[in-house]
């Protein structure tokens, strides 16, 4: 089930975005590419392996370091180590409601209704506030509205939330930042952002 959903999202992702956005968000290309890698990932996940692709050791390990007494007699304990949350896949499957709002936003953007598009994306962000793709999409809309300062911030926010396994999204964000900085006249800042984007490609 997970496999089919994931591929669906890739497909819808690439159809939802209009031509002009393709240029701005090359990570749509990632979607197509990910179909292949995603498929492999999914097949392996569906092929009877555990849902996580982390070593099984994590689960064993997590219990080993018991809560340790920091100082004898002190009332403070250092919390036992729990393995940090880590993304199972590069992009989690969004809720259906979020996908609906994303495609609505894409349609509004294509029709030049940028206010409508940003309202739809903000609404989606209320449902999924930590969805890095939504923050990126909002940055794209603000780019079209030439709110360059905000673009840089929104793309940085998307980067902070993006999975380490999603270099494509992070690279798109850096390209947006580069474009916005260039528009603001910050040439060296733009070049730096471009370099970071290239290092992720």
């Amino acid at each position: 089930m997970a496999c089919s959903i994931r591929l669906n999202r890739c497909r819808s992702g690439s159809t939802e975005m209009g031509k002009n956005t393709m240029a701005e968000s090359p990570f749509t290309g990632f979607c197509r590419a990910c179909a292949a890698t995603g498929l492999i990932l999914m097949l392996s996940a569906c092929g009877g392996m555990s849902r996580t692709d982390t070593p099984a050791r994590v689960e064993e390990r997590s219990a080993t370091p018991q809560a340790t007494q920091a100082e004898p007699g002190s009332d403070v304990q250092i919390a036992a180590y729990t393995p940090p949350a880590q993304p199972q896949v590069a992009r989690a499957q969004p809720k259906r409601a979020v996908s609906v709002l994303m495609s609505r936003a894409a349609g509004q953007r294509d029709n030049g209704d940028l206010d409508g598009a940003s309202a739809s994306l903000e609404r989606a962000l209320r449902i999924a506030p930590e969805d890095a793709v939504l923050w990126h999409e909002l940055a794209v809309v603000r780019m079209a509205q030439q709110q360059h300062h905000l673009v840089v911030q929104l793309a940085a926010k998307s980067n902070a939330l993006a999975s380490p396994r999603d270099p494509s999204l992070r690279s798109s964000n850096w390209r947006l930042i580069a474009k916005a900085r260039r528009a603001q006249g910050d040439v060296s800042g733009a070049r730096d952002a471009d370099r970071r984007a290239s290092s992720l490609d």
Partner: protein
Amino acid sequence: MAAKKKRPARRGAVRPGRKTRKKRASRRRNRSRSWWKAVLGLLVLSGLLIGAYSVYLGKTVRVKFEGKRWAVPAQIYARPLDLYSGANVSAEQLKAELQFLGYRKVAKVSAPAQWAQKGGRFNIHTRDFTFWNGREPGQAVVLDTNASGVTRIRSGRKEVDLLRLEPALVGSIYPAHNEDRVLVQRAELPDDLVNGLLAVEDRRFYAHAGVDLRGIARALVANIRAGKTVQGGSTLTQQLVKNFILTSERSVWRKFNEALMALIVDARYSKDEILEAYANEIFLGQEGGRAIHGFGLGAYFYFNRPLRELRLHESALLVGLVKGASFYNPRRHPQRALERRNLVIDRMQALDFVTQAQADKARQQKLGVTVRGAAHGHRVPAFVDLVRRQLRRDYREEDLTSEGLRIFTTMDPWVQQRAATALGKRLQRIEKGRRIEPGSLQGALVVVSAQNGEVQALVGGRDAGFAGFNRALDAVRPIGSLVKPAVYLTALSNPDRYTLSTLVEDKAVDMTLPGGQRWRPKNYDRKLHGEVPLHEALSRSLNLATVNLGMEIGLRPVASTLRSLGVSREFDAFPSLLLGALSLSPLEVAQLYQSLAAGGFNSPLRAIRAVLDVDQEQLQRYPLTVTQAADPAAVFLLTRNLVEVTESGTGAGLRRLLPKGLQVAGKTGTTNDLRDSWFAGFSADRVAVAWVGRDDNASTGLTGASGALPVWADLMSNIDNVPLKMTPPPGIEYHWVDAAGRLSAETCDGVVAFPYIAGSQPAVRSDCTEQQGSGGFLNGLFD
């Protein structure tokens, strides 16, 4: 006038003698002719005078009717509720939301604004509503819920991906003269309401010309028979003129004016226009300094639903109130109101407006008015206050109180209700448990959405329905240890020097402050703890370690961190700043912690999403903005440390109070002499700040952990929260470290895995190291 005409005729009836007949006759003819002339002249003159006066009155009427008739207060809406498969909305919350909206619970749903429930399944017919971003048509849906929230929504056979319930009307900004109203149009007036009005107040409304002579005669007869005033002969038109244009002074002259103006109004305007004006003008109740005007607001005030949805018995009650809104106040005098309502129904039946069966059914109904305080408006005075202050930046007060603006806010009525309950109940419990004088503790609670800075709830005191001192905005108090995260974040943003395992010195501090005052702060336990790891200094809230650390990194960088995290109030960067000699309101603290909760991205707190004008045109949107305030990697380390606070540090009391599995981060704060008790913290999706103190600023006897923390915990346990996932941002590595802060192997005793900004892990290795040594498999996870 009729009497004047008759007088000469009567004189003419006198029969004079025959001799003088001719002469007299001609004299009489002359005299009578001059009489006639005089009378005619008088007539013309008075006609002219009345005419001129009518023209003058007509102008007054026109000015009143055709200008802007009423100052229409801005209406304030809560946030709309988005429903979709996977929404964390429990059956309990959904029921409460439907109640906020005044939906009727029925056995079988057949019309908008109705709902039915069977187990986890809800049948709901939503209302039409126009939002700032389009219209949402009403529809009938079947919605399934289970323990974790909404599982499925269908409309007929179609799956519904996303459903939006209209926002509840939660308040208004009414003008200084305190008239509050919600305008309605003639078409929105229910037939029952109009018929009731006609039956009781003005039977011949559609037949008379503004003044009803037959009505006056009938009233006169009735009053003479009863020996007192039992009936008024005023038409609806006269009542309207009286309330709308004239003062309430009682005099013959005013009565004359009223009648004349009623005739003018009736001649100039249609019956429907008159009815509409009447329906919007009528006074229907009083709540404190707020006067309830018009049936539109009356329906919300008494029944919490729009006028068009009222049933016969409800419309009849509103009609009954016309005669005397305070005398028949259904909340204060329910029996009186019930009798009056039934009288209205009797009259309607007598005039065949309703059938016997309809009338019988309506008479059997309870009054059905909402409890005081739960009705429209003013159950959230603190939040409305915040909205008003934010609006004042962009609008003139006059426009807010008169232009009929519609203001869409971020307020979450469910969270707001839970927050008010959490504060009120917990303070009561603390007072009882600690033998504190009942009612002496006060508090405030602010809830903010973590990632976008929307204010979801604001409670300004323990009696949340009372519009008094708004502590959430105006209780500006020293924040004590709540400031410490800013000190530690400043340190952790400098990974070359500080990590979570860096040792800091908890040793005595003795210095002279600018101004000559000597400063010798102490730890809460009055002990010195020597060298302690940085993370422990924060989780145990050690004052001396914090001051030493802060002085090492410098006051200026700490002050600058505070400013970028969103503190806009002026403050002095004295050493005492490090222990919270900085006064902020609970809302300002929420801004500070929002930046931390959002991974170092500050979003200015917003209470408003959009403002629409009276024609539903969008005037303004308040968009989502973010500004990076700190390095996300450093914020991640700090957050991990603030989680430790709630698990094993000064906030460990939370573990007993919060549901299992809800990982949160937070910080306690206590000020000198236990005057202020603070707790600020966050889950993955909500930031909340609780303050407990006294209005006279005396000691409460409470620490942050014993006062504000349980309030905070009660709130967070009673609303849905997403636990912190602690997903590390790029650039974070985990390493195993022993108690002395040395790199160790993961198999060694007493080691703990700490996150580090890549490259900042300790260089010193413990004796217990293996080949695979540092990090091991962990780092493989975050390549």
